[in-house]
């Protein structure tokens, strides 16, 4: 297993735990043991563990079970802070899969090559960094980070520990994303100087309830993890954590991490960032959720100069979805409520979705690549692209650097909204400048011992 020489203290602890566990549970041989140091052999099965198995995490687990049944991977463990969800996942995964409440038991196991993290957003960075420090390859759900500081730590941990990280903005791997990308980079709408992302509003908490005791099956302390302590409230979890600024951040983070991911990739802007960010919006007036319901954010990029906007608008203002037969590469548009309009000096282009469904306008689908034109990377599938990264060391399509760049856009949009003022951003250093309060909000101290 990788990085043996760096994990002395943890190895001691891990060795003790593994020894104890081995009495009752057979461990798998990691694929990395049969291949080059740090990389699984090309034909070896990776051994996976799933951290966070409800909602999207449940989808990942079911997908991985299908892959296991096809003989592509092993599944060693599942983990969740909710015992009911954990029991369901253990059943889904079947015999030979160990359930855990605490993900750190998984990180101790040397037979596990990689982890899929699909916990609430406020856990993404801490768990990804810890997994990398323990030598695990990581698939982590989007958005990558909740703060600028978390994003920097994620990039540093992936680089230092040489692990492959794929972030779950899977829109980049969709067939019509490839078609849109090559259409745009070949100048079909000319020079693009503006991208307007659109989305329907974040929901309001119309059924507010007072704080209460957490349900018996939920480890509230573990669910909160790095967040500052507060009493349990039903409106925090499960999936609705998205509408709380600290743990989710609203549509701009939930779907912005998809739609703006496509934009940054197609504009060739990965690794860059805006110089100013200015947001306005309407805040909820009741209930627990505090994300902006309607919102408008303007990101100004320099060298090259272009503008991106993110707008959460009323449903009746959204662009109309294209009519389809269902025979297109991406099929019918099932989620028309979000996407982006690309404005060039020779025309416009629109795509809908941006996540598991990414739908490109007809003209991009029908455009044929002429001889000598520029082709672009075509993902074999978001998980396949990750497996390729693990086995070859190739950069993943939604690598951690790109994903943090996109997540930072979402974070900065929310900080500007919260503070009610324009922010100035230094994209190379990744720092807010000239605003002490906003600078403090680039990080958020984390509760002991759940920290980066």
């Amino acid at each position, binding site marked *: 297993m990788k990085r043996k020489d760096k994990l002395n203290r943890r190895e001691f602890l891990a060795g003790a735990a593994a020894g104890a566990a081995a009495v009752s549970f057979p461990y798998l041989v990691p694929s990395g043991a049969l291949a080059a140091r740090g990389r699984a052999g090309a034909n070896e099965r990776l051994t996976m563990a799933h951290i966070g198995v409800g909602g999207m995490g449940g989808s990942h687990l079911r997908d991985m079970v299908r892959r296991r049944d096809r003989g592509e991977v092993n599944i060693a463990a599942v983990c969740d802070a909710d015992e009911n969800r954990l029991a369901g996942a*253990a059943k889904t995964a079947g015999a030979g899969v160990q359930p855990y409440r*605490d*993900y750190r038991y998984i990180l*101790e196991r040397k037979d596990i090559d990689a982890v899929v993290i699909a916990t609430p957003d406020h856990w993404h960075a801490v768990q990804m960094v*810890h997994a990398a420090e323990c030598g695990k390859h990581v698939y982590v759900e989007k958005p990558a980070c909740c703060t600028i500081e978390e994003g920097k730590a994620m990039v540093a941990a992936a680089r230092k520990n040489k692990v492959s990280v794929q972030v779950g903005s899977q829109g980049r791997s969709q067939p019509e994303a490839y078609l849109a990308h090559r259409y745009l980079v070949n100048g079909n709408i000319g020079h693009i100087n503006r991208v307007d992302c659109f989305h329907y509003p974040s929901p309001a908490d119309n059924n507010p309830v007072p704080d209460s005791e957490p349900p018996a099956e939920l480890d509230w302390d573990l669910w909160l993890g790095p967040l*500052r302590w507060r009493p349990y409230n039903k409106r925090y979890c499960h999936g609705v954590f998205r509408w709380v600024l600290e743990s989710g951040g609203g549509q701009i983070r939930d779907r912005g991490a998809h739609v703006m991911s496509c934009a940054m990739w197609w504009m060739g802007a990965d690794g860059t960032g805006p110089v100013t960010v200015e947001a306005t919006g309407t805040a909820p007036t009741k209930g627990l959720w505090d994300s902006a319901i309607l919102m408008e954010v303007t990101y100004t990029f320099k060298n090259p100069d272009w503008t991106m906007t993110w707008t959460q608008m009323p449903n009746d203002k959204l662009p109309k979805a294209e009519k389809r037969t269902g025979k297109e590469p991406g099929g019918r548009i099932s989620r028309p409520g979000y996407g982006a309009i690309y404005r060039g000096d020779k025309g416009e282009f629109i795509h809908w979705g941006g996540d598991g469904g990414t739908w490109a306008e007809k003209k991009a689908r029908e455009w044929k690549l002429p001889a000598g034109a520029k082709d672009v990377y075509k993902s074999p599938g978001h998980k396949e692209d990750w497996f390729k990264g693990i086995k070859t060391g190739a950069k993943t399509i939604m690598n951690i650097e790109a994903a943090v760049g996109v997540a930072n856009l979402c974070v900065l949009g929310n900080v500007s909204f919260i503070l009610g003022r324009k922010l100035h951003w230094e994209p190379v250093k990744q720092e807010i400048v000239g605003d002490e309060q906003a600078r*403090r909000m680039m990080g958020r101290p984390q509760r*002991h*011992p*759940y920290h980066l």
Partner: protein
Amino acid sequence: MSISNLKEMSLAAGAVAVTAETAGAAKKKAVEELIANIKDKSDKVRAEGLLIASDVGAPAVKPLAKVMGDKDVEVMRAAKRALWKIVRRAGRPSARDERKAVAAELIGLLGDGQPTSVRREVLWMLSEIGGRESIKAIAALLSDKELREDARMVLQRIPGRQSLAALKAGLKAAPEDFKLNIAQSLRKRGVKVSGYPCVKLVPTKKTNVKPVK
């Protein structure tokens, strides 16, 4: 000095006093209007309060904190949001006096006369706008069992030598069960700490769920 000059000065002083009195009355009225809006049963009226809160500023801090103890959970939430709006406005660049005035009011709320939930929220407000003037009051809470973890994190966030010194002193004074927490903050601030190792990767929580056989 002529009598006419004296008369003019006297009139001017009177005008200043009247203006100050008028301004004071206007501020008082604005606070009362804000609090009335925030305490209203209608969320639409409370929303109007949220819109004006940041303009009312420091004089509304203590009255809003009092409403944060309201039994109506929506009124309590509205008061908390209004107070945060004041904090976010006060922290803007080039508003030093306003920030200091709001921070001073917040520091006054850290005492044990306030409910723990209010003091916890106030600590986090100070994490955004508190300066060295707030360190002593925050550091005092490192010995409060219910608030010490928040106080520790807030000191970690406030830059400067004073907050760092408070954390170092806190490590010396802390009971054994809290030293690891403060050591965590000191490491984040770039200090080498021995004797209290990082335990972030040590698992502690066991499940009752059994594997499927």
